[in-house]
């Protein structure tokens, strides 16, 4: 190879080198959108709009209740809370982009069991920043669940005789209202288009963000927090069972929330993730993977409606239906986390893969 060849090779090499800086992780915009991603983006935007639409009346009802606590204003705010909490279950799968930017995440919005001591301190006059990092366990839906339901309506009305309690309630719903409105408007104005165009499967691509968050929400939030921890699968030192650790413990909403959560998973899966799974050649026990996943969704959504209500009482009574349901959740965890993630070929990390 002559000198010219050497120089040419070198230039080619450098050109290739510089290219890597910009385009290897193609999470960004590259031309026309992907049909399935557009469908998914629309569905996600609609979920956030639904959440914001249910939180606004919750905030209004909380303001009305705080101004004049009475059995009727309490019922109004409790009803609004139930609707809003159930719509939370339709968005907890999307913890990326606008949701993380605005801290509308499970950590800040749905950390349960809630920290009742911190809530009491905050109501009692300790200064607090409602969205502060240290306040995550005293805010969001679980905090409202406690404030609006704990120990019956008489105890609740008694709780709101102080100004501190009323202010705290309003601060909680106002924060949710601002954040949910922000996220809904960001999704509909800009992020939906960006999401539709973020093609590919590298870390940072739309499918990777969605699938990882979706699987994490199933694996950690639904499987572990909503069922696994209350029935006592973790920890050598904790009591085998912890019924008070269910979601929506004080309002007794646990089963309704779990059902809303499970149905929301099915809806999102069927909004375009299914297209991607169908397009793969992946198999499960000799049948197409999508068939296996769809069948398991049916099992889960059928069984969730037969669970003892509320879940905490069922756990106390060792109802075998709950453990049986957990087994079905687990089967789905394997299908989503192993089979689906692998079939889609998505990356979870920005770390380099093995070369060629």
């Amino acid at each position, binding site marked *: *190879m002559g000198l010219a*060849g*050497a120089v040419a*090779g*070198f230039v*080619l*090499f450098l050109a*290739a*080198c510089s*290219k*890597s800086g910009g*385009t*290897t*992780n193609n999470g960004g915009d*590259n031309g026309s959108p*992907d049909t399935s991603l557009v469908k998914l983006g629309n569905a996600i935007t609609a979920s956030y709009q639904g959440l914001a639409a249910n939180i606004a009346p919750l905030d209004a009802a909380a303001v009305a209740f705080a101004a004049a606590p009475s059995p009727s204003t309490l019922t109004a705010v409790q009803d609004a809370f139930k609707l809003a909490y159930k719509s939370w279950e339709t968005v907890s799968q999307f913890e990326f982009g606008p949701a993380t930017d605005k801290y509308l995440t499970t950590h800040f919005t749905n950390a349960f069991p809630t920290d009742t001591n911190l809530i009491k301190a905050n109501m009692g006059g300790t200064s607090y920043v409602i969205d502060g990092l240290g306040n995550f366990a005293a805010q969001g839906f679980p905090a409202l669940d406690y404030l609006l339901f704990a120990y019956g309506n008489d105890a609740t009305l008694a709780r709101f005789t102080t100004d501190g309690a009323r202010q705290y309630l309003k601060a909680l719903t106002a924060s949710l209202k601002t954040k949910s409105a922000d996220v809904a408007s960001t999704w509909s104005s800009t992020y939906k288009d960006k999401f539709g165009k973020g*093609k*590919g*499967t*590298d870390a940072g691509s739309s*499918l990777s963000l969605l699938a990882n968050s979706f699987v994490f929400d199933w694996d*950690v939030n639904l499987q*572990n927090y909503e069922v*696994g921890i209350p029935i*006592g*699968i*973790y920890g*050598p*030192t904790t009591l*085998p069972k912890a019924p008070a650790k269910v979601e929506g413990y004080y309002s007794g909403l646990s089963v309704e929330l779990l059902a809303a959560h499970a149905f929301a998973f099915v809806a999102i899966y069927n909004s375009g993730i299914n297209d991607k799974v169908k*397009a*793969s*050649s*992946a*198999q*499960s*026990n*000799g049948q197409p*993977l999508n068939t296996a996943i769809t069948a398991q969704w049916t099992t889960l959504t059928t069984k969730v409606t037969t669970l003892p209500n509320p879940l905490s009482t069922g756990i106390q009574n060792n109802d075998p239906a709950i453990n049986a349901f957990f087994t079905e959740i*687990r089967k789905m*965890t*394997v*299908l989503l*986390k*192993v*089979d689906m993630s*692998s*079939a*889609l*070929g998505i*990356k*979870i*990390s*920005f*770390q*380099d*893969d*093995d*070369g*060629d």
Partner: protein
Amino acid sequence: MMTGIRNYLIKPRSIAPLAIVRIVFGAVLFISTLRFIAKGWVKDFYITPRYHFPFYGFEWLHPLGPTGMYIVYGVMALAALCTSLGLFYRVATVVFFICFVYAGLLDKTYYLNHYYLVTLMSFLLIFAPANRKWSVDVRLWPSLRADQAPSWAILMFKYQLCIIYFCAGLSKLTADWLLHAEPLRIWLPAKASTPLIGPLLRQEWAAYFFSWAGALFDLSIPFLLMSRRTRRVGYVLVVIFHTLTAVLFQIGMFPYLMMSATLIFFFDGQTVATVQPVREIKGFRLALLGAYFLLQVITPFRFLLYPGDLLWTEEGYRFSWRVMLMEKGGTTFFYVKNPETGRKFEVNNRSFLTAYQERMMETQPDMMLQYAHILERYYKEQGVARPEVTVQSYVTLNGSGSRLYIDSTVNLAAQQESWFGHKAWVLPRK
């Protein structure tokens, strides 16, 4: 015959290829070390994790603290820069090698074939007189200057690269790769948004084309590069192939490492009479080189000594140039049982491992075993005298559907790792 080989190995050659590879490969190492630091991986890989997965036999190695690890990577970057410049060359290459190997041995989570490539190349650079032309060292010590180098110093790089490509090619001669086009069939359609070639990637035949072309490339490139007549064509193919993979896959610096290392096959034009007489190759050096290459040739084939499917069990998988061969995913549910109370509970892996460590552990039996021992130690400290650790593990390989991977009745706390022992508790691939 020995004299023949010996004469062949000491035959003087132009030193240019060595100097060029030193400059370019060193620069790529420098860039990739800076990139590693800039991406925050020193922190993510060595500072954040609570536990690590050291290579067998190196459990005594531990990461230094944050300052220490950044110093290691800072020194590594500096050593790479000095290597490229040819400044304090011998010291620089030794320092780079030690830092790089140290970091690599700390945690097998991060093992990549291209880190192994860097390890070997930087080891060979230590012994090559690559700083005797176009280097700062020559400026400082003009007597170092040489226009020629003994043949062995160049050949060792060539042979090393040939082994890499050829073994990578052989490992692709499987039914999954050639007959089912897996895993490219899973990966390529997802790249349909790539400019120009994107729409093609959605076609099923594209996966077959790339599978066969990839295998053919790997198997033929050593011959194309070794022959003077075909090496230009070979290098053009090298550039095309690696550029393509750089665009399609998230594989970081690997393509550039290969494109720079393969420059060793060029620049061997006639040189003027030697400035520096070529020394005789010492017997022990010859033996060392022989042993090194014997090991290089044997290591990739050690999998033959194990029963079962290599990609499934991963016994003999690392250090064998098996790349891009599998889309493997898994999940594990680890259980700890206190035999004294009979209480059995599940472990939350994420409270011990980072997401990346967990993900890597969930498809690799030796890491599962290490993790079981991490759990055993932890729960002993928690007061469980003889914790029993079992795992329910599901793995899917190339879209074949998840199956139970590890015998879920085996107490992994009672199993020990060994140098090359077979792990009977890995269930066979069905």
